[in-house]
Structure formats: C-alpha cells, structure tokens
C-alpha cells in the first residue's frame, strides 16, 4: 500500500519538474495526466483497502513526530472516498481540458495539478493551520485556473474571486491563531478536546474558523463572486469548482464541526436558506453556466444543512449525506461538462443536444438525479432524509427542503423541456470531441451505478425486482431497430409480466388484480396500436415501459418506499411520453410540476407516518393515531394530482390533447387510475378513522364539482382530444365522489366506473387518435361527414359514447344506477344532483364529438380519407367486446367486486338473483334489459325495412332548404361553437379561474426571484461587503 503522503510528493515533484521541460507541452500534459492517474491509483488502493476491512484510519506523521507536535495527515475510509472522488474528477477533468491546457501551456498544467493536490491535503490533514495553508493553495490555484481563457468576463470575475477568498481566508487565519492561543495546539482533534466553545474568546476564535469554511461554501447571499466565476470561467473549471472544490469544503466543514459544535443549529438554517433562495433565484436565469451555479449553490446549501443535522439523522447521516453529495458531485460536474460541449449562452440553445442523442440522455440522467428520481442515488438520500427528519418531528425542515427541491424542479425541467422540444435546425453543427465526451459519459454511468449500489443499501426495497428495469435498458440499447421489433418485444415483455403476476393476484388480492389488469392489459392493447407507426420512433418504448414498470411497482409495493419508487418512476416515464407530443412542451412542464408537488406531498405524508409507526409498511398507515387528517390530506392531494381533481387539473387537458395518438389513451385511460389506486389504498388504510369522515365529505363535494366543471368545459371545446381530456377530468371526478362516499355501493360504483372508464376512454381516445392521424387536425369543425369514410371508427365512437353517457342498455347505465342507489343510500343528495346534472351535460359534448366528426357535411379535402388503421382497430374492437360483455352480464363483474368490497364495507351490498340486482331502493336486470331492448329494436327495424325497402340513397347537400341549398360544407356543417346559447347561460361555471390563480402564483414567484437577484449587482466590492456583513450578522445571531 503506497503511503498517501506520496500523493503530495509526486504531485509536487512533477509540478516542480515541469520547469525542466520548457516548451514541450504535450510531454508535460502526458506527465500531468499520468501523475493524476497515479494519485487516483493511490487513493483507490486505500479506498478498496478500507472498504474490505474496517481497520483504524492510518495516521501519517509528517516530520516524524506525533501530533500535536507535528502535522499529521489521516487516511481513513472517509478520506479515501473523498480523495478518490477528487482525484478521479481531477483526472477526467484534465482529460476534458486537454485542448485548453495544450493551448495555454505548462503553467496552467502545473496550476491544475497543484489545485488537485491542495484539495487532497485539505481532505487528509488534521492540522488547522495546515488546512489554512492548503486551502490557500487551492484557492490561489483556482484563481489561476479561472483565467484559463482570459477574456473580458473571466478576468474581473477572477479578481472578485481573489479578493473574496482573500477576505474569507483572513478570517480563517485569525480564528486559527487565536484557537492556538486559547487551546495551545493546532491539531483539530486536540482543539476539539479543549472544547473551546466554553472558553471566553475561544468560542469566537472557533466561530471565525467555522464561519470561514461556511463562507467557502458560498452561502446565500454572500456568494456573488462564486456566481460570476461559474458564469465566466471555462465550464471545465466550473465543473471542478462546483463538483470537487465544493465537495472538499463540505468534507472540511464536516471535519471541523467537532471544533465548534454550537454552529450546527444555525448551520441548518443557513444551509436551507441558501438552498431555497438560490433555487428561487435560479428561476429567472437563462445563462446555463450561471444557472448551474445557482443550482450548485443550492445543493451545497442543502448538503451543509445536512451536515448540521448530523445529530438529528443519527446513524443514517452518512448514507444520506453521501448519496445526496454524490448525486450533486456527478450531476453538476456532468452538466458543466455538457455545457462546455454545447458552449452556448442560452439554455434554449441546448436543443443542440439532440444532434447527438446520447448527450440528451446524459442530460436527462443528470437532471433527474438532481431532482432525486429513482433509481439515482439522491432519490434514496432524499427519501431517508425526509423519513429521519420526520421521525425527529422536524417538519419545518421537511417543508423547506421540499419547497426548495420543488423550485429547483421548476427550472431544471423547464430546461430539460427546452432541450427535448425546441427546434434545433438553425443551431450550428458541432463535433463531439472524444476527450470532452468520455468524462461526461463516465460520470453518467457512475451516477447510475452508485444509484444501484445505494438502492442495495436501502431496507424496504427488497420487494421489487430489477428485471423490468434491466429489460427497459435492453430495449433502449436496441433503440435503433425498426419499430415492429421493439413493439413486439415490449408487448411480449408486458404479456410475460402479466402472466407472472396476474394469476396469483387473482386469488390473493382482487383489488390489485383489477388495477394490475388495467395497467398491464391496457398497456398491451395500447401498444398494439403502435404498429401503425412507421420508422424507428426513437426513445418511445423505453419511456413507455418505464411508465408501465412504475405502475406495476405501485401495485406490487408492500412498503411506502417501494410505492414511492414506483410512483416516481411512473411519473418520469409519463413525463417523457407526454412531452413527445408536438406542442406539449409547456403542458409537460406543468404536468411535471404538479407531479413533483404531489410526490412531495406524498413523501411528507409517508414521513409523518414513519415518524409515528416506525414502519415502512403501507399497512402501517392504518396504525397511525395522531395527525391522521394531515397525513390523509397530504396523501390525498398527492394522489389527486394524478386524478386531476378540480384545482389540480390544469395540466391535464393540454397534456392529454397534445400527446401522440396512442399515448393519449395510455396517459388518460391507464395512468390516471394510478391516482385512483392510491386513493383506494389510502381510504382502505384510514377509512375506519372517524376524523376522515369529514374530510371525505369535502372530497365528495370536490369530486362533484370536478365532474361538473369537467363536463361543462368539455362541451365548449373545439379540439376533439381536448374534449376527451376534459371528459376524463369529469369521469375521475365521479370516481373521486364515489370513493369519498366510503360505503359499499359508493366503492362499487367507483370500481365499476374505473373499469368502465378505462374501457370506453381507451376506445374513444384510440379512435379519435386514429382519426386525427388520418385527417391531420384536432379541430372537430374541420372534420365532418366521416361516417361514410370511416364506418369502423364511427361504430367504435358510437359504442363509446353510449357507454359513457350511461344510456341503457350499455355498461354505462350500470354506473348511473349504482350511483343513484349509492347517493340516496348515503344521503348525499345535493352533491348527487350536481353529479347527475353533469352526467346529463355529458350528452352535449358526446353529441358534439360524434356529430362534428362523423355526421354533418363531409369536407372537400377529406373526401378520400380511408378508414382508421387496422392496428388501431384491433385493440379498439377488443375493448368494445369487453364493454359488450359487461353490458350483457354485469353480474360477472359486479358480484366479485361486491365480494371484494364487502371485506371493508359489509353493509349495503347488492342482493343478486340471477341477473337481477336488488339494492335497498331499486332493482335492475342488466341482462333482461339488454334482451328486451334488443328484441324491440330489431322488431321495429324489421318493420321499417318491410315498409321502406326501396329507400334510395341521395347525394350530399340533397336537403330541403328554404332558399337553394348551400353547396359549401364549411358553411353547412353546423359545428363551431355549437353550444353558444348554453355558453351564454351557464358558461360562467367554466371561467378559467383556477388557471388564472396558478398563473398568478407563478408570476408572483418569478417577480420575487427577479427582484431578489438584483442584490448581485456585479460589483466585487459589494460582494466583499456582503461577506463581511454575513460574518458580522451571523456572529450576532450566534452570540
């Protein structure tokens, strides 16, 4: 095992030796690189050594004397880890900067080398003054690296950096020498033994030391200098500053906490303030590097807060801190490196990434790891963090952390959206320099790898198998293959998974069986439609499968962690599905924001639960005794962001309408059910708690209003898919209402509706999507008369709307009938009336849908469109068969459902006598009604046929008209603004109040951000004043 001191000796030796080489830059660079490689090797060796055997850390006594008489370095597992991180990053960073270093010559190379060295020693040393010396080394070296490419921007910012760090290190030195005076030693361990915080003056000394370190972490608002550096310096340098320099300072802070333990509490506050504030300021930032600067300052704030929480977090601390830190370390460096490859000044230009798709994937990985999505390390870190904090009842901290992360999500996903969607045709071509690409790629891979390792560390995640994810990865690898191969494989995958899971679920757990069926079978059916597409359809299948995997995980989850894992996975997948649509960049963003917000609400709810029950089992929700309403509301809100209940619904219409033809059914008919499932779990667990009843009462009202507004809005749409989207909102409103009744019939209705809605909404969206593919427009008034060209589609839509409207004899009526009985049974008359009213309003849009598209006048440009693609027709008609079966034999569905629900609500079940269902109030024989109506209908049909056999077909426009008949379909097709009178009468109900509310919120936040960031007026002296002020103010806060 090589003595760690040789990290220093070889680095310095080489740095000095470069003087011999004179102008031979290539050779020098090679030397530097190999040196860095050597340093990596040394630290790696120690890392492995300590990983395998938990031996005492190694102490290196410089000068050959024991501390406190001489400086000693320490090499333990922590040190090994951090030096390894530093050196690897240094090595790759140097590779990344090859071109620049060769251009600038050997001076920069040796500065770079010394910079890395300084960081190494800062990690290892146990001597305060030595720490000061080497932090000076790294900051001076950095001051040199900033001017790697000297220009109007980098030089002044370099100067700002020098004076700022100069001031900060003076504080450090002052503190250090007085710490020596009061404690008689410079060794960190001995100083902390002297516990100076109790010595008059000594406390101030250590305060200065620790505060200097905190200031090195660029806390808000004393960080203007750092931002300028991030913006102006070469991104390769930015990566080093944000990635490894920040990491090192964090480790130093961690190392020094024992010297001034009293700082912990205030440190938490400072860190979180910095976290929230700098994320907020990031909102109105368009320069990628500066934006990354804001983000990394935020992350550092969160991490330093975490260090302050060491006591709260207990033995979980290391795991949490490390996972979050590593995500930041890899992601931020990676993003800076990407920025260096792109080399543009506006985040909008990052659409360039699409010219090299792999870069886009890396970008996504980095962004998602910053927000903390599975399976990336920070997901587990944030999860554990929230859990532990809640366990300590630190709800203020939880709240601020979640708020901060949410704000961070806003700009990061806006950025991702730009990269994925914006037009990049007029952006310049760029060639991918291997020396720049390799490090970035490595970082992405390492990030995922650490995520997997971290997931292995978590308890409560054992239930989920990783095979689906591996399968998805495989699907991504074959992304270049033609569509039918990937589609077949995906379908096969889903089929296989359902074969694995469904049969046993059927016998063990009906509820999960039903939803798993909706998710997987629905998935297969919607995927079949994918055969209709041509070409490769890059990136579609991985994300679709990610969504389905997430859904499956939700079903299989037994612990809250597994559930949340699946939930986030599903969110991520659906986000990518939605953003694939043509104009859906903003809709996808708002979908993501609502989802994140909801996810954080869920997280908080689970946290509170864990705090009390100390158990991660989902069942533990039922053991909760205090704060039940809060948890219930939090979780309900979280789930209702998916069910798009009134107030949380504004993301849905756009997202579903703009999505691709076969994606709309996925996200509408299938995805929304995840929220329903969540609500069901929630109510099953907590339903018997008396406090919930009142909340459920209001949920019921919410559901009713959602139904009303949804249907009303749908009636006034001109865009077919938007209309269906609003209809989905309304349908989910019914379901929410029915769930909230928390009675046997109520839940029966809810389940029946969930299944039905899945069937007919899938039919409608698939059909309309297929039609849209053919006619090339969403606007209904541009279609018309298509019944002649598309009989298949017409029949499908006809069945769909009859089923949806609840007209007997099709399955929809069952829902209505159950509804009446449930409502009267529950005495929720007035909510009920609203729901029935909206149910009738549904006729408006249903008629508009089918009339405007298929009836009325055929347009000239559509005379030759053919019927919908067979690949769409197949799943559609399979679903229609499903509807027919349920309509003819409702008991086949309702009886098992009733049995299932009886385990929670035994009272008020339906009595079955053959096909005749009898409730307390009414009775209904679906089968009989079907037959009766069938016979009657056919009789009359036959009669009419007998009477008018020779009815002759006439041409279009052959209509009786007062004047001569109009010959233009556009003027004769009465579709646009069909319900003008109705709008005049009741349009006020759907005035976009809620959208306005959310817009107002966002405007407000943005203006706040814009106003706050004015404090960074670019004046170096102002920044110094901030630093001094920070120093003084914090002093008065502490003492």
């Amino acid at each position: 095992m090589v003595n760690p001191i040789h990290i220093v000796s070889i680095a310095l030796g080489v740095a000095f030796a470069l003087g011999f080489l004179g102008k031979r830059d290539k050779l020098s660079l090679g030397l530097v690189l190999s040196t860095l490689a050597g340093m990596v090797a040394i630290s790696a060796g120690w890392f492995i050594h300590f990983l395998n055997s938990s031996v005492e850390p190694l102490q290196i006594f410089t000068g050959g004397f024991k501390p406190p008489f001489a400086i000693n370095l320490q090499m333990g597992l922590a040190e090994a880890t951090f030096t390894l991180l530093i050196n690897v990053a240094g090595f790759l960073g140097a590779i990344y900067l090859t071109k620049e270093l060769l251009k600038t010559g050997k001076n920069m190379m040796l500065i770079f080398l010394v910079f890395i060295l300084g960081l190494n020693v800062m990690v290892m040393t146990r001597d305060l003054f030595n720490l000061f010396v080497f932090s000076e080394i790294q900051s001076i070296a950095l001051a040199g690296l900033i001017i790697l490419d000297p220009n109007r921007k980098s030089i002044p910012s370099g100067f700002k950096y020098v004076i700022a760090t100069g001031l900060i290190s003076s504080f450090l030195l002052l503190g250090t020498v007085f710490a020596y005076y009061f404690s008689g030693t410079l060794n960190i361990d001995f100083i902390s033994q002297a516990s100076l915080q109790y010595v008059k003056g000594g406390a101030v000394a250590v305060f200065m030391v620790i505060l200097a370190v905190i200031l090195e972490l660029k806390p808000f608002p004393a960080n203007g200098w750092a931002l300028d550096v991030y913006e102006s310096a070469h991104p390769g340098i930015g990566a080093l500053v944000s990635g490894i320099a920040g990491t090192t300072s964090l480790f130093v802070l961690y190392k020094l906490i024992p010297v001034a333990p009293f700082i912990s509490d205030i440190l938490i506050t400072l860190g979180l303030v910095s976290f929230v504030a700098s994320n907020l300021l990031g909102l109105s930032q368009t320069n990628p590097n500066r934006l990354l600067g804001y983000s990394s300052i935020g992350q550092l704030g969160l991490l330093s807060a975490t260090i302050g929480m060491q006591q709260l977090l207990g033995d979980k601390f290391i795991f949490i801190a490390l996972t979050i830190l590593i995500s930041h370390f890899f992601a931020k460096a990676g993003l800076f490196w990407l920025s260096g490859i792109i080399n543009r000044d506006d985040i909008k230009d990052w659409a360039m990434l699409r010219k090299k798709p792999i870069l886009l994937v890396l970008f996504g990985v980095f962004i998602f790891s910053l927000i903390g999505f599975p399976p990336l390390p920070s997901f587990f870190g944030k999860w554990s963090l929230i859990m532990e904090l809640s366990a300590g009842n630190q709800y203020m901290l939880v709240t601020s952390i979640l708020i901060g992360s949410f704000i961070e999500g806003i700009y990061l996903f806006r950025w991702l959206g730009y990269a994925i969607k914006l037009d990049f045709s007029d952006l310049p071509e760029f060639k991918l320099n291997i020396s720049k690409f390799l490090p970035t790629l490595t970082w992405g891979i390492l990030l995922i790898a650490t995520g997997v390792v971290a997931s292995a560390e978590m308890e409560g995640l054992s239930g989920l198998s990783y095979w689906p994810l591996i399968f998805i990865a495989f699907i991504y690898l074959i992304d270049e293959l033609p569509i039918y191969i990937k589609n077949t494989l995906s379908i096969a995958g889903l089929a296989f998974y359902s074969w694995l899971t469904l049969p046993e679920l059927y016998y063990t757990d009906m509820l999960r069986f039903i939803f798993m069926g909706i998710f997987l079978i629905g998935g297969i059916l919607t995927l079949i439609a994918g055969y209709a597409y041509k070409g490769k359809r890059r990136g579609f299948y991985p994300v679709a499968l990610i969504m389905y995997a997430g859904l499956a995980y939700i079903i299989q989850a037994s612990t809250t962690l597994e559930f949340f894992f699946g939930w986030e996975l599903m969110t991520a997948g659906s986000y990518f599905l939605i953003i694939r649509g043509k104009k859906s960049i903003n809709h996808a963003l708002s979908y993501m924001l609502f989802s994140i917000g909801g996810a954080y609400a869920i997280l908080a709810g689970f946290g509170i639960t864990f705090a009390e029950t100390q158990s991660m089992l989902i069942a533990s929700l039922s053991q909760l005794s205090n704060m039940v309403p809060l948890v219930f509301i939090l979780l309900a809100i979280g789930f209702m962001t998916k069910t798009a209940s009134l107030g949380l619904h504004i993301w849905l219409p756009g997202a579903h309408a703009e999505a691709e033809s076969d994606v709309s059914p996925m996200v509408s008919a299938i995805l929304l059910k995840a929220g329903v499932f969540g609500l069901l779990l929630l109510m099953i667990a907590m339903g018997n708690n008396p406090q919930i009843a009142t909340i459920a009462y209001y949920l019921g009202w919410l559901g009713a209003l959602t139904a009303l507004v949804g249907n009303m809005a749908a009636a006034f749409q001109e865009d077919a898919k938007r209309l269906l989207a609003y209809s989905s909102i309304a349908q989910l409103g019914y379901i929410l209402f029915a769930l909230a009744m928390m009675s046997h019939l109520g839940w029966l209705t809810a389940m029946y509706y969930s299944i039905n809605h899945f069937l007919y909404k899938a039919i409608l969206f698939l059909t309309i999507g297929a039609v849209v593919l053919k006619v090339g427009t969403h606007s209904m008034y541009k279609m018309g008369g298509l019944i002649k060209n598309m009989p298949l589609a017409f029949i499908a839509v006809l069945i769909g709307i009859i089923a949806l409207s609840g007209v007997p004899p099709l399955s929809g009526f069952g829902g209505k009938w159950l509804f009446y009985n449930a409502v009267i049974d529950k005495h929720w008359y007035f909510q009920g009336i609203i729901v029935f009213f909206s149910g009738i309003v549904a006729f408006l849009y249903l008629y508009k849908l089918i009339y405007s598209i298929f009836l009325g006048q055929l347009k000239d440009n559509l005379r030759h469109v053919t019927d919908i693609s067979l690949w769409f027709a197949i799943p559609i008609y399979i679903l229609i068969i499903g509807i027919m079966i349920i309509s003819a034999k409702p008991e086949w569905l309702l009886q098992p459902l009733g049995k299932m629900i009886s385990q929670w609500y035994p009272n008020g079940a339906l009595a079955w006598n053959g096909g005749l269902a009898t409730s307390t109030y009414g009775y209904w024989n679906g089968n009989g009604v079907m037959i009766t109506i069938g016979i009657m209908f056919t009789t009359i049909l036959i009669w009419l046929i007998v009477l008018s056999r020779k009815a002759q077909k006439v041409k279009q426009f052959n209509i009786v008209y007062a004047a001569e008949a109009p010959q233009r379909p556009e003027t004769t097709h009465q579709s646009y603004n069909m319900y003008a009178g109705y709008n005049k009468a009741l349009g006020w109900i759907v005035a976009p109040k809620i959208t306005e509310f959310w817009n107002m919120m966002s405007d407000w936040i943005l203006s706040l951000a814009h106003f706050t960031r004015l404090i960074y007026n670019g004046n170096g002296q102002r920044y110094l004043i901030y630093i001094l002020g920070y120093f003084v103010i914090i002093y008065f806060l502490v003492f």
Partner: protein
Amino acid sequence: MTQYLSVEFIAMLTGFLLMVIGVWGIISQKNLLKIVIGFSLFDTGLNIVIVSLSYVKNSTAPILDKAVEVSDAASKIADPVPQALVLTSIVIGLGVTALMLAYVMRMFREKKSLEINSYNELKW
C-alpha cells in the same frame, strides 16, 4: 488593568487597528489599487497580531546560544510556533498580493480603468 499596558497587548491593539483600517479601505475605496493596499494592510495587521500572541512575559527569542542554554530554554524563550506561523502567513500574503496586482494590471489593460465600479458586466 496592567495587562492592557503590557507590550504584547499594545502590539496586538496596533495590529487590530491596522486590520480595521485595512477593512475600511477594502469596503470603502473604489480604486482597485487602494483595495489591494487595504488587503496588505489587513495582512500586516494580522501578522502583528500573530507575533504578539507568541510573546511570553520578559522572554527572549527562541534561539539557543550563549544567552539561552538548552537546559533553561523552556523558561526563557518566547513561543516559537506563532513565529513559524507568521512566516508562512507573510509568504502567503505576498503571493496573494502579487496575484491581485497581476489581476489589476490585466484588468487595467482591458479597460484602462482602475474603478471597481467599471467591472460589473456579470450580474444577477
């Protein structure tokens, strides 16, 4: 009270005074060079403070020769550690100052201005 008249205390007071002056220069002067001077004043003051910390009542320099025998060194000499530290801090101060001056020169070359206010391109 007497301690406030002792030599080391006065030395330290002087040092702190210099530091305060330096800080004032740093935060109030607009001229880059004056700011740099403020920094070096600050450093100088700091170094004086460090030295004053090393003094032990009526002791002599920690150099063993005729004046100080090895045997009674411990009772005679001043604390050598801060003196070693001050050496380091002086050198570091020198390095930093040189760096700042170099920066100033470079900035002057770019804009022919020594006003710190004229270097605010980067903001927000």
